[in-house]
C-alpha cells in the first residue's frame, strides 16, 4: 500500500537532467530515494556502502550503464560497467572482489556486438582482479531500450585501519587529482551522431584499484577519495565540500587538460570541469602525507600526471572556489542539469 505522498517537486516527470550528476540528480536522490530508503549505511553517501559482517568489513555498490554509443573511442559499455563499479569500490578504500552483471538488451542487438561487449567485460574483470559471479539477462522489445543497458553491483573487502569517507576531509588537506580530465566525455561526444569533429582523444576508462591500493599502502591519512565520473571534477569537489561542510580551493592552472579536449570544449561552449572521467580520482590527503602519496601515484601508469590541485580550507564551507588562469577567483558551482552547448 502506498501511503506516503510523493515529495513535492517542481517536476511532475523525470527529465534527462535528473541523470546529469548535478543539482537535479541530487534533488532526485534526496527527495525520492534517500527519504524512503533512509538508513545509516546509505546515509554515508559514499561511492560504496561500507559495513561490518562478522568481523569483516565489506563495501557494496551498484551502478547502471546506459552510455550511447555503446562502442566509443577507447572502450565500450561492457568494460565501462566493470571498471566503473571496480572504481566505486576502490575509492571507498575497498579491495574489489566480486561483481554481478545485469543486462537489459533491446531486441535486434547484433549478437556480434553482445559478444564483443562480454569479451571485453571478461578482460576488464581479469585486469581488475575481480570475478563476475552472478548475472541476469532480460530482452525488451525494439524501441523499449537502446541496444543494451548494463547494471553491475560489486562487493569488496575493506582492510583494518582504512577509513575513507567524504565526511572525513578537513581544512589543511591537500587535494590530489590523478591525471588529465574530461577525456571520457569528449571521446563519447566525438563519437555521437551529429557532432563531426575528429580527435585522437580516447576514453580514460581504467580500473583504479591497483593505484588506490598503492596509495593506501603509502599513507593512513587519506581521508576522502572519489572517482570523478558524471558531472566531472567540479561536481565531485562540490559534493565533498558540501558533505564535509568545508571550503575547497583549487587552482585552474594546475588542472591538467589535453589540448584537444580544450579545443573541443572551446568550440562547443563546454566547461571541462563538468565533463565526465572514467579513470580519474581525487584524493583528500593530510598535507604531511601529500608528497608521499603524490609520489606513489606518479609511479603508477594510471597516475603519472597526478598533481596537487588545491586544498581544503575553513572559509566558504560547502563552496568550491577556483583561482583562475589569469589570477582572479571565482566560484565553481555544481551544475544544474546537463551542460548544453551554447548557441554561439
Amino acid at each position, binding site marked *: 500500500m502506498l501511503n506516503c505522498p510523493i515529495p513535492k517537486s517542481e517536476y511532475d516527470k523525470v527529465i534527462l537532467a535528473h541523470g546529469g550528476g548535478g*543539482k537535479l540528480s541530487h534533488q532526485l536522490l534526496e527527495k525520492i530515494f534517500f527519504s524512503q530508503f533512509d538508513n545509516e549505511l546509505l546515509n554515508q553517501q559514499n561511492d560504496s556502502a561500507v559495513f561490518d559482517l562478522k568481523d569483516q568489513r565489506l563495501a557494496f555498490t551498484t551502478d547502471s550503464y546506459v552510455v550511447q554509443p555503446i562502442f566509443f573511442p577507447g572502450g565500450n559499455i561492457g568494460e565501462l560497467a566493470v571498471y566503473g563499479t571496480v572504481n566505486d569500490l576502490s575509492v571507498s578504500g575497498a579491495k574489489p572482489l566480486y561483481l554481478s552483471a545485469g543486462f537489459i538488451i533491446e531486441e535486434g542487438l547484433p549478437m556480434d556486438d553482445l559478444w564483443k561487449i562480454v569479451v571485453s567485460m571478461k578482460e576488464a574483470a581479469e585486469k581488475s582482479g575481480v570475478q563476475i559471479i552472478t548475472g541476469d539477462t532480460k530482452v525488451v522489445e525494439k524501441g523499449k531500450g537502446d541496444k543494451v543497458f548494463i547494471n553491475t553491483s560489486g562487493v569488496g573487502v575493506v582492510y583494518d585501519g582504512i577509513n575513507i569517507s567524504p565526511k572525513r576531509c578537513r581544512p589543511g588537506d591537500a587535494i590530489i587529482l590523478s591525471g588529465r580530465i574530461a577525456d571520457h566525455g569528449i571521446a563519447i561526444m566525438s563519437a555521437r551522431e551529429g557532432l563531426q569533429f575528429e580527435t585522437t582523444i580516447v576514453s580514460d576508462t581504467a580500473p583504479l584499484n591497483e593505484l588506490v591500493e598503492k596509495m593506501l599502502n603509502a599513507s593512513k591519512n587519506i581521508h576522502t577519495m572519489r572517482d570523478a565520473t558524471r558531472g566531472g571534477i567540479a561536481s565531485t569537489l562540490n559534493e565533498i565540500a558540501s558533505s564535509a561542510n568545508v571550503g575547497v580551493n583549487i587552482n585552474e592552472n594546475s588542472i591538467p587538460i589535453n589540448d584537444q579536449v580544450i579545443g573541443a570544449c572551446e568550440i562547443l561552449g563546454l566547461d571541462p570541469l563538468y565533463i565526465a572521467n572514467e579513470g580519474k580520482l581525487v584524493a583528500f590527503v593530510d598535507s604531511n602525507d601529500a608528497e608521499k602519496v603524490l609520489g606513489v601515484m606518479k609511479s603508477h601508469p594510471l597516475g603519472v600526471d597526478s598533481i596537487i590541485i588545491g586544498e581544503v580550507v575553513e572559509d566558504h564551507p560547502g563552496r568550491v572556489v577556483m583561482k583562475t588562469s589569469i589570477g582572479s577567483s571565482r566560484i565553481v558551482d555544481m551544475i544544474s542539469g546537463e551542460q*548544453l552547448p*551554447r548557441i*554561439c
Partner: protein
Amino acid sequence: MKYIDEYRDSKIVKNLTNEIGEITTRPWSIMEICGGQTHSIMKYNLEEFLPDKIQLIHGPGCPVCVTPLEKIEKAINIASRSDVIFTTFGDMMRVPGLNDDLLSIKAGGADVRMVYSPLDAVKIAVKNPDKKVVFFAVGFETTAPANAASVVEAERSKVKNYSMLVSHVLVPPAIEVLLSDEASKIEGFLAAGHVCTVMGYSEYEPIVQKFEVPIVVTGFEPVDILQGIYLTVKQLEENRFKLENQYSRVVTKNGNSGAKEVMFNVFEITDMKWRGIGTIPQSGFKIKNKYSKYDAEKVFDINDIKVDEPEECIAGEILQGKKKPFECDAFGKECTPEHPLGAPMVSTEGACAAYFHYK
C-alpha cells in the same frame, strides 16, 4: 593552446589592468553587448581587476535571453505535435515557456532533438520523410548565415519536410534603443566581435556619430575584453567618441561577404519582439516570401498564439542594464538555473545565470 593562451596570459592581463587603472580618473559605465563577453567577464571574474570607478553593464546580447516568450510558446506548440521532429541548439531546451520548456515536453514524449548545426536538421528531414522537421533558428547575425544556408540546402536538395521557426535579432537597432532611453547610463560600448565578423563594423559608425558614444569592437578572451575596456576608457577620458576595432585579428570593416550574401538571400529585415524589451523596429529577420514554404510560421497554424511577458521577471531591466541580477527579488530564490523564471537565468551567457554561477 595557441591562439587562446596568449589571450589568457596573466602577465598581459596584469599590465592591461594597471594601464586601465592609470588612465581612469572618473566613473564610467560601459556596456558589453554580447552574452559571450558577459560569460568571459564572469568566468574570469575580470571585475576583480577593474577600478571601482568602472561599472560594466551586461547587455542584451544573449540570443536565448531575448527570444520572446511568444516564440517559445510557438516552439512548444509545434514540437508537441506527433508528426513533428523539433530540432534546436542545446541551450534553447531549458528556456521556460508559460508552463513547459522543450526539455519537459521531450520527457512527455515529444520528439525534440539537440543539433549542433542547422544542416544536421536538414539531414534529419531527409532521413524522416514522413515527419515535418523544424529547426528553431535563434540568434544574432552570428548564427544567421548558417541558418540561412540550411534553407538554401533544403531547396537545393528538394527537401520538402523542412522548415525553420525564426527568431533572429540584430545588434545595431538594439544599441540605438538603449541609447535613445533617457534613463540610460551607458557611456561606451564593447561591440560583439563575432557579430562583426559576419557584418563588419561599418554599420556602427552612424551610431557613434549620432549618439556621440565610443564603440569598440571587442573579442571574447580576457585580454580582448580588457583591451576593449582600455580603449573605451581612454576615449571617454579624452572626451572622444570613435569607432575602434580591438578584434582586428578576425573583424574587418565589411565583414564576410559570402555569409552576408546567403543571409540576405533567405532573410529580410523586419520588426521584432525582444523578450523583456518589446518590439524594436527593423531589428530582426524573417524568411523572404520566395522561401515561405520553409517558414514554420506559415507551415503551421500558430499565428493565434499571443503571449505577454511575465511580470515578476525583470529581464527587460536586466538586459537594458538598468538593474543588476541581484537587485531582482526573485534572484536565487524563486528564480534559479534549475527553475528559471526568465531567460537570463537559462543560458550561461545570460547575465542572471552568469551571476548565479560565478558570483
